[in-house]
């Protein structure tokens, strides 16, 4: 019996977005990292193109992150005090992109200044040749102030700047326009909100191939399935030809997984949760692998061991 395999004929294609600029392109990165370009659902190689694998970014912070789980601090060791060294360590741990997370304050309560943000960006750029993602502290005024400065400091590097949200995107987009960077657009797990923000940002004149969307992810056990389904819907809409959904997707899995008790703490939790470190790494790994299956193009992770597992998973899915 010959079974006729159903093949979907999608009309749409995910836009290719290149992060980082080499010397030739006006930056200093050793190479650019491209995502997108798919013409079918994740890893269905038999019916379409999957030109690039999902990319792993590792999150580092400008300040020693006081609220991180001891497991993470232990895993990275001393480098967490030195963003440049941390970036190098992240590269060695298998990162293809570095996320530099800026803080609101340093040493407790003095605000991080424009000069601080520029200096740390420069240090990280000097320390690694990987393309850089920079997120502001997540507070509107500080984001706008610091990211504009960072954009200027790294002019031409094609950084991915974040996080643009509907309530605050104009300044970040303007900075990206001025200095040839990209932005990430976050919306709250909703297809239409995602589309709307993409429209608003591209209306400002930023080409779609400089926008990555972040449909908002949640950790395993904490509503991950919502993000999972919204990502599937976005990707299906993109393949059906809906232009404003055809952007690559980014998920902050490390942040999400490590703020949950399962990963964060080792005491005062049910015995059935098992061994702490194993559980914590599994939590980040499974959050990552599942969202990769639903279409994530960039996964921002935290623990080197979870990164190693995600790498195995991605390589196998790409047929390596």
């Amino acid at each position, binding site marked *: 019996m010959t079974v006729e395999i159903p093949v979907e004929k999608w009309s749409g294609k995910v836009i290719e977005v290149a992060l980082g600029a080499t010397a030739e392109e006006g930056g200093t990165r050793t190479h650019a990292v491209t995502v997108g370009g798919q013409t079918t659902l994740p890893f269905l190689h*038999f019916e379409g193109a999957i030109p690039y694998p999902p990319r792993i970014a590792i999150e580092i912070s400008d300040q020693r992150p006081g609220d991180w789980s001891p497991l993470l601090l232990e895993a990275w060791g001393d480098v967490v005090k030195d963003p440049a060294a941390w970036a190098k360590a992240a590269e060695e741990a298998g990162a293809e992109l570095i996320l530099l997370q800026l803080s609101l304050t340093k040493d407790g309560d003095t605000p991080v200044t424009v000069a601080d943000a520029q200096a740390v960006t420069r240090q990280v750029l000097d320390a690694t040749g990987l393309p850089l993602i920079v997120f502001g502290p997540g507070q509107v005024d500080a984001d706008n102030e610091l990211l504009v400065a960072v954009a200027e400091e790294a002019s031409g590097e094609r950084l991915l700047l974040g996080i643009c949200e509907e309530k605050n995107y104009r300044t970040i987009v303007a900075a990206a326009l001025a200095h040839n960077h990209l932005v990430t657009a976050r919306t709250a797990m909703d297809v239409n909100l995602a589309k709307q923000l993409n429209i608003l940002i591209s209306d400002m004149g930023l080409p779609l191939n400089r926008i990555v969307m972040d449909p908002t992810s949640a950790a395993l056990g904490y*509503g991950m*399935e919502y993000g999972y389904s919204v990502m599937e819907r976005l990707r299906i809409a993109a393949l059906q030809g809906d232009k404003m959904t055809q952007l690559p997707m980014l998920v902050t899995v490390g942040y999400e997984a490590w703020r949950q008790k399962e990963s964060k703490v080792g005491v005062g939790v049910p015995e059935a949760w098992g061994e702490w470190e*194993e559980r914590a790494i*599994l939590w980040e*790994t*499974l959050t990552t692998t599942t969202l990769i299956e639903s279409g994530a193009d960039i996964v921002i992770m935290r623990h080197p061991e979870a990164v190693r*597992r995600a790498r195995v998973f991605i390589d196998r899915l790409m047929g390596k």
Partner: protein
Amino acid sequence: MALTGLQIYKLLPQTNCKECGYPTCLAFAMKLAAKQAELADCPYVSEEAKAQLAAAAAPPVRLVTVEGPGHKIEVGNETVLFRHEKTFFHQPGLFVRVKDTTPVAEIKAAVEAAMGYAVEYVGMSLHLDGVAVEAASGDAATFKAAVAAVLEVTDRALILMAADAALLETGLSATNGTRPLLYAATAENWEPVAALAKAKNSPLVVRADSLDEMAELTEKIKGAGVQDMVLDPAVRGLADTLVTLTQLRRLALKKNFRPLGFPLITFPGEVAEDLLDEAAFASQHIAKYGGFIVLDRFTPASAYALLALRANIYTNPQEPIKVQPGIYEINDPKPASPLMVTTNFSITYFSVANEVDGSGVPGWLLVADAEGMSVLTAWAAGKFDAERIAKAVKSTGIEDKISHKKLVIPGHVSVLLGELEEELPGWEILVGPREAVDLAGFLKLWNA
């Protein structure tokens, strides 16, 4: 093509006898159309109507039941490729494999650990579904002893794995009163294995190296009288498995291709180097179309992660997980700590609880029964109104635990303020932020 409720109604007796449990034939028909009711519940439906309805309603993926002495698991009956289209109905069975070449005592210990495992997750107790016993020894007596040993320590469902019908039969002889899944019929052994499955009324895994061969084989086995089948397409790599399982689900759903309309079985451990990789691979099979997932490694942490993932993926997107209404204590609250109210939609609860937790401010979180809807939706549907909130305040006895009478309501339902003041005389109603993320800032300003 699925029938609409009105089309089904025409086929029903239209007597409104109510014996199906629904008030009218139309209500019943609409429930049938939504696949939320069974036709068998109607005692008076005509044979002709039954035939017409059954043809339209036959599930594209067959429902297969595997039973142990004390538990059973049903897999199949799926109707969509993506959970957002409707929902995934039957969670894949998570099984742990033991081999009969392992000493009996170790087998028992392993099975006891894995099957004795249970973990609490949003008010549910989650556990694994059963044990796969493999006749790795090739020796009938050893296999039988291993099966017997497993059944001594668990009453969950079994999968018996052996190369030929004789071995399987010996294994089966130790499983009286249960309905294990037999593994596996192949092009070489299908005749005796199918005969055994038919004789014992056992569900049967069919393994073939290509979908063409698989479809031929299932037709033959069906011809031999076996209906309940499970497919092993014999691919193990992560990429190939995703592609093949997707193709099989599509064939069943989109082409209504009956020869391959069965649940699927996977073995992620066979290509994994250790526990963490195996769990990662298994995560794919949970999300993408696995029906029975046979694990080779077990730890409490990996079981918890996989069970939570399975619960997440198989959550009905149209009927979200609810949390138990009541009072939740966060950061060890004192009588003077703030009291906030929200709905019992799990995501709403988690967002609020996480933000309060993260703020470091101790607080009382009152979760009202809003039928599992988020704040705005529940409000729009009248499930989170002043009356319900007041009821939650009064019924939980929170008044005895706190020293103040101030209640913070979500900013999105600020319109309830006036009504709430009427419903809760003597209380001060405060309007909190619209979004949970702004709670920390709000709470910092609190002084009760």
